[in-house]
């Protein structure tokens, strides 16, 4: 009979074996609004969240610019913020991808963030109650007079909305959703932002679905202002709008409209839609309680945007707060970042014992290599992750001896 007792386990060798399976602890060097980031912020950035939350507590309607270069972690900040803001609906729009159908896309994101139909139902229920749908006839019976409720809703809201046709149709949809059992299903589809054909729309007695700018804006305003939670809109890559507005001079066009209309007043279709997107974003300030964060790559871009806004309406600048600058990682941050990342990796691979045995180790890298990476990348988080990916790929896939790889990088310093 074989009886074996494990007297000693080489945990470092075991970690290398796990890595050799082919899993790199560092994979993603670009954060996006779609894929959630697991890691929190490094120590030097922790205070940023408090600053942002304090700013939100002080003012209902603000635009808060966050400035940081490429790869500095602006999108990553969105995920950390989202995790911290428990009592907010925090939703994300990147102008890199979305500047057309801005309100419609924003509405879809908001509904998804709210949790879809359930919350929407409670908001429409609350609204209908406020508009008199729960009035009890003879003290008991809810005989909702839909026309009366709609009239009361319109009277209550009309002063806050410019587009009365959109308002009327939005009220139609909300009241049908709550009070008309024969239209409830279609009304819910409309409210969830589904695109609808003319038959469904005429059944609801509504002209357009929420792809229509004014309809999506009216719904956004009503839903955000009546939501139990406060709302934060995170607009990433804001300077994109300025770059599109300026237009790409180098691009060749088959038909150059300046031949007909002169150089000064010609705008490309792209530039015109970027201009419209900016107007739409500025219009969002009419939504009570919506806090907006915009991210930009430089102070110059912010100044440029301020100039454009000033030309449109100087008063809008009053809600724009002083920018928050995201700086590069300090040296200590890279150690914390590396350790947190490795900890998550080991946890996912069910090997946290390694950390219990070597709580202060940076294995398989070393303090010297981490310092080297920090210096080479100048503390830029994206560059740091790229370095990690490169080194770990070498450890995992190259035929070189592990010690030789380490020595090579240590000697680079």
């Amino acid at each position, binding site marked *: 009979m074989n009886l074996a007792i494990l007297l000693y386990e080489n945990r470092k060798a075991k970690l290398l074996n796990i890595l050799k399976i082919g899993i790199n602890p560092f994979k993603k060097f670009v954060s996006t609004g779609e894929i959630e980031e697991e890691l929190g912020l490094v120590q030097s950035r922790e205070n940023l969240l408090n600053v942002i939350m304090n700013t939100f507590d002080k003012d209902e309607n603000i635009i808060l610019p966050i400035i940081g270069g490429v790869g500095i972690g602006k999108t990553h900040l969105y995920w950390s913020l989202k995790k911290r803001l428990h009592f907010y609906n925090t939703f994300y729009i990147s102008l890199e991808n979305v500047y057309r159908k801005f309100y419609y896309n924003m509405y879809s994101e908001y509904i998804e963030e709210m949790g879809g139909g359930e919350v929407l*139902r409670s908001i429409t*229920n609350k609204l209908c109650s406020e508009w008199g749908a729960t009035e009890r006839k*003879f003290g*008991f*019976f*809810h005989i909702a007079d839909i026309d009366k409720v709609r009239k009361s809703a319109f009277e209550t809201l009309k002063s806050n909305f410019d587009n009365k046709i959109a308002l009327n149709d939005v009220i139609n949809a909300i009241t049908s959703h709550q009070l008309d059992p024969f239209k*409830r299903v279609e009304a819910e589809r409309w409210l969830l932002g589904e695109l609808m054909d003319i038959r469904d729309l005429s059944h609801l007695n509504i002209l357009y679905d929420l792809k229509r700018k004014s309809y999506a804006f009216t719904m956004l305003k009503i839903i955000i202002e009546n939501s139990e939670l406060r709302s934060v809109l995170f607009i990433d890559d804001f300077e994109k709008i300025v770059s599109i507005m300026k237009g790409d001079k180098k691009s060749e066009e088959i038909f150059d409209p300046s031949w007909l209309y002169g150089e000064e007043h010609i705008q490309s279709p792209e530039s015109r839609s970027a201009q419209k997107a900016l107007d739409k974003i500025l219009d969002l300030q009419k939504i009570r309680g919506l806090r907006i964060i915009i991210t930009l790559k430089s102070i110059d871009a912010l100044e440029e945007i301020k100039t454009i806004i000033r030309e449109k309406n100087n008063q809008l600048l009053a809600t724009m707060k002083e920018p928050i600058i995201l700086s590069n990682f300090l040296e200590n941050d890279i150690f914390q970042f590396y350790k947190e990342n490795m900890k998550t990796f080991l946890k996912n691979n069910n090997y946290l014992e390694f950390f219990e045995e070597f709580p202060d180790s940076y294995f398989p890298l070393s303090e010297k290599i981490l310092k080297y990476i920090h210096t080479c990348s100048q503390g830029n988080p994206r560059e740091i992750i790229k370095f990690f990916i490169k080194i770990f790929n070498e450890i995992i896939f190259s035929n070189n001896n592990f010690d030789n790889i380490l020595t090579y990088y240590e000697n680079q310093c």
Partner: protein
Amino acid sequence: MTENHIVLFDAIKKIKQIGEFSGSIISKTFDPQNYVIFSDSINISDDEGIIISEGLQVGFEEIFNEVIAFSRKNQYSWKILEEFGLDEQSLEYSILIPEEIMQLYDEGQFSDAFPFTINMLHTAGLYLKNYRTKIDHLNFFKGEILKNPVGLLANGGVCVADRVAIDHRADPVFYDTILIGRNKDDELDASYEPLLNVKIDDKIITSIVILGIENLKE
């Protein structure tokens, strides 16, 4: 007298609260008429008696030897005799349903769980059993859900619910119900029941009227 002072008038327990009250009020006349009156206000004074300026009276009446259910909007008034009149025309009790019960009742009303509820256009009798008459349409509505039932209890109580389902044994199951009844000391009380299962053979319920939506809107 029950908590919250919800009993505004009780001819049996000789209770009368003088004043003008508003809210959700259920009043009932003595047996055998047993009319139930729903109203949102009532005025009780020694001089003018009890006045319900606009109430919905619900019950059964006999027209040309036929007993039919009705609901009727009207103004009602009764004189309060010193010894509290106990004839069939007079008011047995008026009870103000506490707001917390009404809030539960309202929440139940907006439930999406029962989308296929039959809304009767005109008030109709679903069930009546007394020493003279028997109406029983429970079998006909087996498996259906009917909106706005009002039931009379054998102990002089009233049950008003958002809907009633008729189960496979042709017994009514009331959902989102306000119950008014007398306890063993004959004191009136009101309670809320999300679900109330009644066996018709137990003779707890003596009649059920389904209110018509058109009659309520009038």
